[in-house]
């Protein structure tokens, strides 16, 4: 590696990584610095800028009426998502993995992958219209079994809107996660299973004590993805409830979107983005340790 140390090679190296770095500089780092910078101003598109210091942050954290409820909603939705996205696909992956015939295992994996071919927007619209709608599947079933009193607009009733959002995607068997867990389970060396058999670890006990610790790195990956995604995601809420009724399903990302593109409060929107960034950083830093240890573990093995 190190015997190619001429100036020419150095220049060629810089030149080769330049396109990547240039793109990142323009489309990642520049917007990031703009976000920090803009968050200290207040301005409209095409209007004058006023320096407001930390006012945007103070307004958002202290006096904005949406802050408390939107963070609560975000936390609830993220917690539910973590719970279901970690448990259900892992159990399904385990069930598939335990089957003796490769053909069956392949077919099940394929079946659970099929929904990923439908664009996410389409899935959300289908859930909103076909399943949770006023005349949707859930209400039709309730009516036909004579439970008419439970019929409601699941996404528009203040009591159920948030839960209904969390239920989208039921039974939450997402192909991508099943595959990742399946890969993790397949990589468990045979010797571990043999050792487990000797210890008479079977069934649920074996699953909890042997399988889960060995797919821990996959669990951490998905955990991290879900947390980061959960804090950032507002698209499906934008599509389904727009955060309503009232602010019952509102999340901070949506408020940022509205402030920026609907109310023209660009600086304020940027400061919301920065607040969310800080929260994501917090979780990332906490998880850094686990990341490193997982890598080390891998290198050691």
């Amino acid at each position: 590696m190190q015997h190619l140390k001429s100036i020419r090679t150095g220049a060629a190296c810089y030149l080769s990584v330049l396109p990547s770095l240039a793109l990142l500089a323009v489309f990642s780092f520049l917007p990031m610095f703009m976000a920090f910078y803009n968050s200290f101003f207040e301005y409209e598109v095409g209007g004058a800028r006023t320096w407001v210091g930390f006012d945007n942050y103070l307004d958002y954290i202290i006096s904005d009426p949406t802050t408390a409820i939107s963070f609560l909603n975000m936390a609830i939705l993220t917690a539910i998502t973590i719970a279901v996205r970690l448990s259900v696909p892992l159990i399904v992956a385990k069930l598939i993995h335990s089957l003796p015939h490769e053909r069956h295992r392949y077919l099940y994996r394929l079946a659970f992958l099929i929904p990923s071919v439908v664009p996410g927007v389409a899935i959300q619209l289908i859930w909103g219209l076909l399943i949770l709608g006023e005349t949707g599947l859930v209400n039709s079933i309730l009516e036909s079994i004579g439970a008419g009193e439970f019929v409601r607009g699941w996404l528009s009733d203040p009591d159920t809107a948030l839960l209904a959002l969390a239920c989208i995607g039921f039974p939450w068997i997402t192909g991508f996660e099943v595959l990742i867990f399946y890969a993790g389970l397949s990589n468990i060396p045979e010797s571990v299973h043999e050792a487990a058999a000797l210890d008479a670890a079977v069934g649920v006990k074996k699953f909890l004590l042997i399988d889960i610790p060995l797919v821990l790195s996959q669990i951490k990956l998905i955990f991290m993805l879900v947390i980061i995604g959960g804090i950032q995601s507002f698209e499906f809420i934008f599509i389904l409830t727009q955060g309503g009724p009232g602010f019952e399903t509102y999340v901070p990302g949506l408020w940022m979107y509205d402030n920026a593109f609907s109310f023209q409060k660009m600086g304020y929107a940027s400061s919301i983005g920065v607040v969310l960034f800080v929260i994501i950083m917090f979780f990332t830093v906490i998880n850094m340790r686990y990341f490193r240890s997982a890598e080390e573990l891998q290198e050691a093995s």
Partner: protein
Amino acid sequence: MKKTYYIQHAILITGVILTLAPFYFVISNSIRSNNEIFRSPFAFPQSIKDVFSFTVLKLTGRENEISYTVRTTDGEAVLFETRSGNYAEAMSHQWHTMTDGFVYAWEVLRQYMVNTLFVSLTTALGVMILGSVTAYIFARYRFPGSGILFYVVISVMMIPGILTLVPSVQLVTGLGLRNSYLVLILPYIASGQVFAIFVLRSFFKGLSEDLFDAARIDGANHFRLYWSVVLPLSRPSLAVIAIMNILGTWNAFMWPFIVNSDQQYHVIASGLYIMSTSQVATNYSAMYSAYLISSIPLLLLFVYATKPFIQGLSSGAFKA
């Protein structure tokens, strides 16, 4: 001792049915007329029932029993009526009921489809080229600042999209990129390559030094080393990166929705949303057809790429 797996199968099949059930209703609604969807959204499609019963009547020679009436407006006049042996006409009417939604949806979606294909393929290509070159340089060469530069690149993974959304929109507006393909492709490549660099660099680092020595003895220069030694070996990883990239592009909604408002630049995701809020929305048959149509390209991708995808994911590069 032969173990049986009935319980496992039962649970898994229930899971499959629950997962796929919504799509059955999408399909069944896409081949029905709007009036039928209005009045009985979850019943079995009338047109299919009709096609079956008409065919049975035709096969049993009771063609004259085929009767099919459609009332249209203008008072109580009956404008379409088939009786006594008009099998072909009745069938053609059924065919129209089943396909009308698709025909209209396709008219709206075709342009979105072409846009999405173009953007996703260009992005995937760009990510693969830039990602593999940069990863290769970082993995195999050492030059002043290479370590820092690598961490600069990797640190982008820590920047959440939500922080940069608002300024990015202002940036591309300032650059005059809005309503173009570039406004999608360039940022997608910029952010997509980071993950590729991260994964490929560790892969390239793990390649055996002997391979390179052997090629060098054959007189290969730097480019040849990359082109004929490194690239062929990294095909499974590249395939996964490409697929994940295409998936990501196909599902990206917010960014294209905000930056491309002109009809001709919509991609599938933003286009579907705009369809759902425009006047087409009340054309339920067309909406459901659109959902189906929009799934076909990825379905094809999966048919051909499931094996390499599963292999690539299992190769060990994808874990935390």
